[in-house]
């Protein structure tokens, strides 16, 4: 993650969705990392999820390495930069959209949450309600992990990382 941080300013990242897996009911979503402009959310940092698909569980977002309290990601301990919220591009998967939001304080990711996850059926909701908090925590923990990319087997987590990347790009982290 540190590398991403260093190179974000000299790296062009473009994201599109290709290789459709599903038929007429879905269209290709052109997500190019510029869906939403950064929105100042103040120290609250809890911009309300705007989508019905959100199954985010803010209560389960723990940030042990951070001084911030769980319910207030950009805590009072981060006065200089404040808490800015950046919304990543909505990334489509064969199961539905994934969209990540990060809150940045003092040049670090204070929290990461998900605005959209696939909830096409009950199994998806079950999987995602467990997986998403884990991923959220991984983002916060991984700040020093020194990784450029993640190779993985799961569509959702890949989409998560793609959306996260676009949020990072907006934050110029």
């Amino acid at each position, binding site marked *: 993650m540190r590398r991403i941080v260093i190179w974000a300013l000299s*790296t062009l990242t473009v994201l599109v969705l290709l290789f459709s897996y599903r038929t007429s009911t879905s269209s290709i979503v052109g997500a190019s990392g510029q869906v939403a402009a950064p929105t100042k959310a103040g120290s609250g940092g809890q911009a309300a999820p705007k989508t019905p698909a959100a199954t985010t569980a803010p209560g389960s977002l723990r940030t042990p390495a951070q001084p911030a309290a769980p319910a207030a990601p950009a805590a009072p301990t981060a006065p200089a930069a404040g808490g800015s919220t950046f919304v990543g591009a909505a990334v489509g998967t064969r199961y539905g959209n994934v969209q990540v939001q990060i809150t940045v304080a003092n040049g670090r990711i204070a929290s990461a949450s998900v605005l959209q996850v696939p909830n096409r059926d009950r199994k998806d909701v079950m999987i995602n309600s467990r997986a998403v908090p884990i991923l959220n925590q991984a983002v916060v923990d991984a700040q020093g992990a020194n990784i450029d990319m993640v190779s993985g087997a799961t569509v959702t987590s890949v989409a998560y990382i793609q959306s996260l990347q676009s949020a990072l790009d907006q934050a110029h982290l």
Partner: protein
Amino acid sequence: MGMPVSIHVRCADPRSPDVEKAVAAAYHELARLEEVFSTWRPESHVSRLVRGDIPLSHCDPLVGEVAELCAQATEATAGTFTAHLPDATGQRVFNPTGLVKGWAVDRAGRILAGLPGAAWCINAGGDLLVGRHRYVRPEGEDGAPWRIGIEDPTDRSRIARVVPILEGAVATSGTAARGAHLFDPRSGTWVDRLASVTVAGPELMWADIWATALFVGGADAVRAFDRSLEARPDYSWWGQGFD
């Protein structure tokens, strides 16, 4: 819905028109190939071929090329990779998606490789191809290896290992968290265990083929892989979550 494909370019000026042109050309190539090969677009050549609307000879010549590569892949992997997958009714039909993805990204990579001064990474749904222009020196920041974290299939909050890649491909196949989605052509069943196989090597097409084959194929696939190193050296693999 599609699979996310991102292109990342490191160079002195990533916003220059040359870079944007090359990235656009790479995406154009991917989009063009998807139009021919998509099994989900009813009007694609592959869809029409599978329905029997047109013979192979009426398809884009690339379809024949891919069909030949699929046959090579099935032979090289001792039958543990297949391009004949069950459709919605369970009938096995030609579905080259598992090979086309890596093959198409390799082609897009050749477009980016001509970009002076640039190093780049294409991330196609968690499978990666990394490259650089031949004059980008490995000791510079732009030419430094990309550090690829391999997701731990049993605990996705962890990275199982980190593979630094200067040039080449990394593909991971597995079933982490999503349940069965890889087909074992020998038993005719879908494999469901929390594990993954990662393959690194020069081309994403073969890395991806081997990741799938080694995941579903067990000892037979491992033997086939070892044999294949004679014809295609420089590939290596790791298993995650098999212990």
